[in-house]
């Protein structure tokens, strides 16, 4: 019955092309809701029982395709459903201005793909059969591709979309090769479960590396991340939120799924994941700091958070390899919880920046400023997202980072020298990432919402509609809920970690810390409240004036120009890490003879060194090579006949000397 509902809901997606424009969002929401309810029901059932939930979905060329939901899949199902529902709710208001620009069928196509992105993501985590998995993985990439190129009238968007599509197929190729290698070399069935046989007889690192390349492109590990900073800004905000919130996590899911089958050589794999993740985390946030495009900045910050998740997982694997139970359990627990947490605050940040984009029509934060008066609710929500993403208490991001830190500190004494080095690296890495994240988000929040406006983009902005704000409040509440009552999550989290480590008591023992953290957060809020009351009492009979900001006795300055911009705020980091952030300044020097200077302009451009050296430069070289070869393409029939003749003569000569 429930499987039938799932099938029907997926099939009903085609009706979207036939329903009237006005009802379309409602129908999408209903279908997304149905899918979410059914799959969440399965997921909860899987959480409740010790057994793995399994049912047949369909047959693919006489080959059964089963839905298999263990606790890991169940966790991902819940995360996917949550973010897609908020994204769909949000899309109504966000897409409203586009209904006049786009034809009805274009809008239907968009919603159709949104629905398919949802169902394909769900099926990705439910399928174990390799063929079905690869097909649905491809469908997911296609659906997201069409969602990204929603504004296809812009040439740039199409270019980015194609780039995304190509990179996804390179990823798919790696995963395909990995599955084929495993199946051929071990003779086991072409499925995830077949990997068990392969890994029990072969050294796992090579095959794991193939999987890591394939899934890592989706997840955005440095240096495989180059599609992210382009695709996220190009896509509409609800799509960016869903893609960054959950779709890239499915890359992590793939890596985690493969890890469940590996039982040997874990040390090398763990260290590999840890080192890649540390680089990903630190570079992601450093590059994020110098961005001016808010969505590009958020995309780089997603890369950073993938790094944090990877640090947790890598430490978990190191802990398993070195038999440090506490590191294994808490590393995985922190990494997994951060998947959920990041899906919440990153979607919140993308949606709120969508609000800003809808009202101001620019993503360049240096054109914004002082929006707090015009969009007060968006301001608060963005602030909540920023605090959460910096991992500050009492918000949810802190809880997952705290779990990882706990694993690190607790395992220091018991570990041998070799793991201790990596534990120290983990501590330093997390601390540096945390500090940089604060730098990054104080910059972006204050440049967009605080101070005074920097251009007339903000003149006509106003708070967005209630239908757009509702899902955001929902996410905000969840963020606070996880941040303030984290002890409730420890039990389910322990169940998921059990899939990897086989022991869990350490996670549930975190309950004491979590309760005390909760009390401390309560004290924090209470003190703020009391002080607020005290201040209103104290100030009651005093003179409270309002005046312009004190300009240090200098009154000639234009406040909008005088204040710090995003580029000036980031300049410190640019000076510290010039090799990484690759910022170019464009300006003309003053000539010595120039007594009356002409008007000048100054611009800074940031580029991603990985993209430059790994993608753009090789691609340009290839193109140049191709251009040279193109001299043969003259368009004259005589020349082509000549080529054929030359070819025949060469073959003839080779045959004469018995080469072939």
């Amino acid at each position: 019955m429930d499987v039938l509902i799932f099938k029907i809901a997926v099939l009903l997606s085609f009706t979207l092309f036939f329903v009237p424009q006005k009802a379309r969002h409602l129908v999408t929401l209903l279908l997304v809701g149905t899918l979410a309810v059914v799959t969440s029901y399965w997921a909860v059932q899987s959480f409740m029982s010790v057994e793995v939930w399994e049912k047949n979905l369909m047959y693919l060329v006489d080959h059964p395709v089963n839905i298999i939901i263990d606790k890991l899949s169940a966790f991902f199902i819940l995360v996917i459903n949550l973010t897609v529902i908020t994204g769909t709710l949000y899309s109504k208001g966000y897409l409203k201005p586009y209904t006049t620009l786009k034809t009805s069928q274009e809008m239907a196509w968009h919603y159709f793909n949104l629905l398919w992105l949802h169902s394909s993501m769900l099926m990705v985590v439910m399928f174990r059969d390799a063929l079905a998995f690869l097909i649905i993985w491809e469908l997911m990439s296609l659906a997201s591709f069409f969602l990204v190129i929603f504004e296809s009238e812009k040439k740039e968007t199409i270019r980015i979309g194609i780039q995304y599509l190509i990179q996804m197929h390179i990823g798919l190729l790696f995963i395909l090769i990995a599955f084929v290698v495993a199946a051929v070399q071990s003779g086991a069935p072409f499925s995830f479960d077949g990997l068990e046989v392969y890994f029990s007889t072969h050294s796992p690192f090579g095959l794991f590396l193939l999987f890591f390349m394939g899934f890592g492109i989706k997840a955005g590990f440095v240096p495989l991340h180059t599609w992210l900073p382009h695709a996220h800004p190009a896509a509409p905000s609800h799509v960016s939120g869903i893609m960054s919130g959950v779709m890239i996590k499915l890359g992590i899911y793939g890596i985690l799924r493969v890890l469940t089958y590996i039982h040997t050589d874990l040390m090398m794999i763990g260290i590999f994941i840890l080192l890649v993740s540390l680089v990903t985390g630190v570079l992601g946030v450093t590059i994020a700091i110098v961005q001016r495009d808010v969505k590009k900045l958020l995309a780089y910050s997603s890369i950073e958070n993938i790094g944090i998740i990877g640090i947790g997982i890598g430490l978990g694997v190191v802990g398993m390899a070195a038999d440090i139970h506490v590191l294994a359990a808490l590393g995985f627990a922190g990494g997994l919880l951060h998947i959920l947490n990041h899906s919440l605050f990153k979607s919140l940040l993308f949606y709120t920046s969508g609000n800003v984009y809808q009202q101001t029509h620019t993503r360049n934060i240096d054109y914004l400023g002082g929006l707090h008066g015009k969009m007060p609710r968006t301001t608060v929500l963005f602030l909540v997202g920023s605090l959460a993403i910096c991992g500050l208490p009492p918000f949810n991001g802190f809880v997952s980072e705290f779990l990882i830190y706990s694993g690190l500190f607790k395992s220091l004494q018991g570990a041998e020298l070799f793991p201790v080095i990596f534990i120290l690296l983990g501590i330093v890495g997390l601390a540096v990432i945390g500090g940089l994240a604060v730098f990054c988000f104080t910059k972006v929040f204050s440049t967009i919402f605080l101070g005074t406006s920097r251009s007339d983009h903000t003149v006509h902005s106003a708070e967005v509609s209630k239908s757009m704000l509702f899902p955001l409040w929902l996410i905000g509440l969840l963020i606070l809920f996880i941040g303030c009552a984290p002890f409730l999550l420890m039990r389910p989290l322990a169940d998921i970690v059990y899939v990897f480590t086989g022991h869990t008591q350490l996670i549930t023992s975190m309950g004491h810390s979590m309760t005390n953290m909760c009390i401390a957060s309560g004290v924090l809020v209470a003190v703020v409240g009391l002080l607020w009351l005290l201040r209103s009492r104290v100030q009651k009979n005093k003179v409270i004036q309002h005046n312009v900001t004190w300009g240090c006795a200098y009154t000639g300055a234009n406040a909008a120009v005088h204040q710090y911009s995003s580029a000036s705020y980031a300049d410190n980091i640019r000076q510290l890490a010039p090799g990484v952030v690759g910022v170019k300044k464009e300006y003309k020097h003053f000539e010595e003879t120039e007594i009356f200077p002409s008007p000048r302009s100054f611009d800074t451009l940031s580029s991603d060194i990985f993209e430059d050296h790994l993608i753009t430069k090789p691609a340009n070289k290839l193109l140049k090579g191709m251009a040279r070869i193109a001299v043969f393409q003259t368009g004259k029939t005589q020349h082509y006949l000549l080529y054929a003749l030359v070819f025949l003569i060469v073959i003839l000569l080779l045959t004469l000397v018995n080469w072939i």
Partner: protein
Amino acid sequence: MSILSIILIIVAAVFFPGIIGMMKSLVVGRKMPSIFQPLFDVIRLFKKGSIYSTTTSFVFRLAPLVYFATVFASMLFLPIAGERGLLTFDNDLVFFAYMLALGKFFMIIAAMDTGSGFEGMGANREALYSMLVEPAFFITMGSLALFTGYTSFYDLFTSVQINTDFSYIIGISGVYVLIFIAMVENSRLPVDDPRTHLELTMVHEVMVLDYSGFDLGLIHITSWIKFSIYTTLISNFLLPVDWPLGFQIACFFLIQAVVAGVMGLLESFRARNKLDKNPQWILMLSAIAIVTFLATLIIAEKIVLN
């Protein structure tokens, strides 16, 4: 469990800035101000009205309160004289560091909220310095966790005392790093000069330029308590827990007074770093912390030398 630590820290915090002021006057040969002078200043501020910039939002109003509340909440974890803090739990040191970061986050955005270039400059520097100093704190605490096997402030400090003679090695380098972390976190010399009169070279002072009245008073109090908290960490390093309680408390105040005195002395003779040398200087703390960590590895016999 006791609220002893909170009371002691607050009492020490009241005298702390007074002692620094007295020491500075003594060195330059001025008549010494009363030890309560800073307290009188704050009381005067509380009596005054306030002026708010029209550019500012709720963030500006909220920030000093959050700043105070975070520092207050981080007091709850600190043990004193072998007495547990009110809330002691595993890894409370992580919570401690992130709690203080929350306060800083708010002070930074509050400075940006005024839309002033000067305050932006201060906010920007504060964000950079606190980012750079973070690893030093975590590595130092990591060394302690490695040495003792515990992860809460209470357990760390009680067992680092009774462990072995080697504690002193870790104790000394740990105290050294902590003193300078305290200098950076509280915007004192050599990173920031609280006496400077030029806004361009300020860090913390310029961030709070637009605050007045109650808010400014609260910010001052918060900085005192913050300083006192770091000094408490230092005294926890030094004081053996098996001494009698009264004697420990006396020593606690002595250490607070000595640290304040030394600070006044240092600030009278030392000049501030060149601003662009600050990042290097702060990173040096992490380097020393790593050396401490290596020493701990040797003491814990993870690295075997022969």
